[in-house]
């Protein structure tokens, strides 16, 4: 009975109730959507880290990670490999040799980690091969008589393997892509020019184009001027098994592009057999085994099993390898909750005001109800219910609309590419697909109900203080 009355009371002043409801809807919608975008970015980062960069579990010599000593290989690698493969829940495993070295081209050099892999095994564990930039080659698929290396886009730019140039064919293809002739004319002076780096290319092109032209055609021009000579060369130098300096010329097999700039700069993949020849390691000497699991949820369980079986090795799961990643996932949920609480606190002011109005406006009516025998508890309950209903209607609308908005944007994602450099330097993707778990909606709903109850206390107390005799006399 009270429930029904409270519900009906809300709709006695439709406009006023709607203003509160809409403000709650917008607050909740904005809050949830903002959280979904942040959460999407973080989940993508974790996902990318697990699928493209580190995988789920690593196994190596206990001292290996301290200094990447080339001598610290895994003993009885064959046995270890088969024991891992036979562990239930393990999807795939890849054995790697990992050494530190330096990559040089004619003009530039950079330090990097050189990882020797078996391409077929590696593909089962990490999905890095799927990120090859079209036109730059492939993941060791084409046969070659040269030694091949698979490198990141950031490193390729650093080493001047990727360059920017403008020539006749670039201008022609730009014309074909409907770039107006005025813009092409401005670019013509650059014909035949090779730019030293992405930065100098950007600067020079920006110098001749107007802001509007940059905005409209910048991306297309950059795409067409991007140049990469197939099978470019670079020299890798490192120390061999006996601490002697060694090295060889490698050709680029392909260039990968992921959202983590630091990883792109530092990881060079080569074939195990090539690395073995140069370092003097034997065929079955590996430094590291990386493991992919069937199910991410079983990480703790399976790493415990592996730790028991391979007690002489160091077994680390992704949470231990990248504690920041795991910690961030934990911390961020707290941050989301704080954010929602702040929004709800702001909403509470509006609710309190409205409910206070409701009480003052109905002084006579409330007096009458008490006079005919409605006890104080029920009056309190009625007002509280009105406040909760008001908040819930707005809250549910906010949740429904945000869910719709999230699923609408989740397909295509939201592009933040104008900030791409900043995002990628932090290891976040610039193209974000918003996502949020169902449990968050439940948390929000609970928070809304609490807000409704809390913001009704003051108005309800006001109602209780009314003296029925006095109240009946008011107009």
């Amino acid at each position: 009975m009270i429930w029904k009355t409270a519900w009906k009371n809300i709709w006695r002043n439709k406009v006023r109730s709607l203003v509160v409801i809409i403000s709650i809807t917008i607050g909740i919608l904005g809050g949830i959507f903002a959280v979904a975008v942040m959460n999407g970015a973080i989940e993508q980062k974790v996902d990318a880290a697990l699928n493209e960069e580190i995988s789920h579990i690593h196994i190596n010599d206990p001292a290996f990670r301290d200094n990447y000593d080339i001598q610290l290989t895994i003993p009885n690698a064959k046995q270890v490999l088969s024991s891992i493969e036979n562990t239930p829940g393990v999807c795939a495993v890849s054995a790697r040799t990992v050494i530190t070295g330096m990559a040089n081209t004619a003009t530039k050099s950079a330090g990097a980690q050189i990882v020797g892999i078996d391409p077929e095994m590696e593909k089962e564990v990490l999905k890095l091969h799927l990120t090859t930039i079209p036109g730059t080659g492939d993941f060791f698929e084409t046969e070659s008589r040269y030694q091949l290396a698979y490198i990141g886009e950031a490193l390729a730019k650093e080493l001047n393997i990727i360059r920017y140039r403008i020539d006749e064919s670039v201008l022609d293809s730009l014309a074909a892509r409907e770039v107006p002739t005025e813009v092409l004319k401005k670019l013509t002076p650059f014909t035949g020019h090779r730019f030293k780096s992405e930065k100098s290319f950007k600067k020079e092109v920006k110098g001749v184009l107007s802001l509007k032209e940059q905005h409209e055609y910048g991306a297309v021009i950059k795409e067409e001027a991007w140049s990469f000579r197939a099978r470019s060369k670079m020299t890798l130098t490192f120390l061999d098994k006996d601490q002697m300096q060694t090295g060889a010329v490698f050709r680029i097999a392909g260039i990968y592009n992921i959202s983590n700039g630091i990883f792109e700069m530092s990881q060079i993949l080569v074939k195990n057999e090539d690395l073995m020849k140069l370092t003097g390691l034997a065929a079955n000497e590996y430094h590291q085994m990386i493991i992919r699991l069937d199910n991410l949820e079983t990480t703790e369980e399976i790493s415990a099993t592996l730790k028991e079986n391979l007690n002489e090795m160091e077994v680390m799961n992704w949470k231990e390898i990248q504690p920041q990643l795991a910690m961030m996932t934990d911390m961020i949920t707290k941050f989301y909750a704080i954010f929602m609480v702040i929004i709800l606190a702001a909403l509470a002011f509006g609710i309190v005001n409205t409910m206070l109005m409701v009480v003052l406006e109905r002084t006579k009516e409330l007096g009458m109800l008490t006079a005919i025998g409605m006890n104080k508890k029920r009056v309190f309950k009625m007002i509280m219910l009105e406040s909760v209903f008001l908040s819930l209607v707005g809250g549910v609308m906010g949740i429904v609309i945000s869910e719709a908005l999230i699923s609408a944007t989740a397909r295509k994602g939201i592009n933040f590419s104008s900030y791409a450099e900043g995002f990628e330097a932090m290891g976040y993707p610039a193209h974000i697909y918003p996502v949020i778990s169902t449990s968050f909606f439940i948390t929000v709903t609970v928070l809304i109900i609490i807000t409704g109850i809390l913001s009704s206390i003051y108005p309800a107390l006001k109602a209780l203080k009314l003296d029925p005799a006095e109240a009946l006399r008011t107009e």
Partner: protein
Amino acid sequence: MNNLKLAWRNLWRNRRRTLITSASIFFAVFFALVMRSIQLGSYDHMYKNAIESYTGYIQVQHKDFWDEKIVDNTFAYDQQLEKQLLADENVEATIPRFESFALASNGPQTKGVLVMGVDPAKEVHLSNVTDKLVKYRLTPKVIEKIQQDPNLPEKVKELAVLFENSAYTNSSRLQLDLGIDDKKASELMPAIETHAVYKNGSIHLGEPGVWVGDKLSQYLQLGIGDTIVLISQGYHATTAAGKYEIKGIVKIPLPDIDNKIVYLPLDVCQGLFNAEGKLTSLALAMKENQDKAIAQTVQRISAVVSENQKVMEWQEMNEVMVSQMEADDKGGQIMLGILYLVIAFGVFGTVLMLTAERKREFGVLVAIGMQKKKLASIMTMEMLLISLIGIIAGALVASILILYGVEHPIIFKGETAKIFEDYGMEPKMVFWNIDTYYISQMVIVAFMVLLSIIYPMRKIFGMKVVNALRA
């Protein structure tokens, strides 16, 4: 004047409502100002760290060096240029540097490092590397000593284990990390300082010897007195290789730099790369460092430098960081936008109630001859007064907090500090002093209120007196 008086009195007819509405504006303004202050403060702090420990505000470089950081893109260090630069009114000192990359190794451990040839005496004007020398270090041995010291409380021993391998450039940070409050500091710190002290030597021009970043030294497992080997490519593609004794460990507040930096005396570094008398950059220490002063200095200096040199500003040299901060800034602004939207609706709700309950009153006033225009202006004043109360109160309380915060930045200690450090952040929250961001927040609130007044205006001007009287 009369209108204002009327508006003011009207406000207090329903005291509670006025106060609650003002309170909601207070909440928004207070929260927005404090949040902006912390955001801007932390950006400034990060920029200052980057500028003061690495790039400086302005550098003169070979024109291709920034795009292609190779030893060939260097210029001769000549007195003429230095004199001209020093003649500028805003240039305090010129700091010559030779910066390049090399492969550093210690036995089997190898890593690509950033080699920086510096003149320690001149560096005092800018990066002040000497202050960044590690004075205390919690090595496993030190922790063992701390564990065995009977005079130290259990809590300190626990925290010492948590901070294993941390390095400190001063004792106050060490004290905070170990959770020792100021009262007990004089009693406990001397003992801990003797346990943890780390003795550094200095590097001088002409003497081979290096300083190594704290993280890099841990990675390469090097300590003072050990030898580091540097291999790289020198001037005109010669081979550059050398062995140097480590004289000291420095802790740079930028983790990305800390894990790869090696400082060499300038001339030793030039010798390593076979580039005697050459520089990759000449950093300038500024007297005035506001954005405007810097921009003007850049303009003046650009006229002085020769054709194959160029002047770089700190924003260009810290491009990635600037773009990161911009992305973060946008995120914060979106959050505030949502908050303001919510508050705007609250204000609108109040306006709606005000109008509805006074419909009859308005009718009577107009019927007895009050101009609608005057009525509208009273209404507007009421709303502006409500928001003004909120804005002023919010700004006042926020200012007290911010002014206090500017003087006393929030410094975290113990376990909380560890969390910050694990993220590569300084466990410190810095406030940005009262500034133009105040104006923008207030303008937003005022705009919000003006928008919500549209509704009662329409009601008043479209009012039919007869209908209103009957309400």
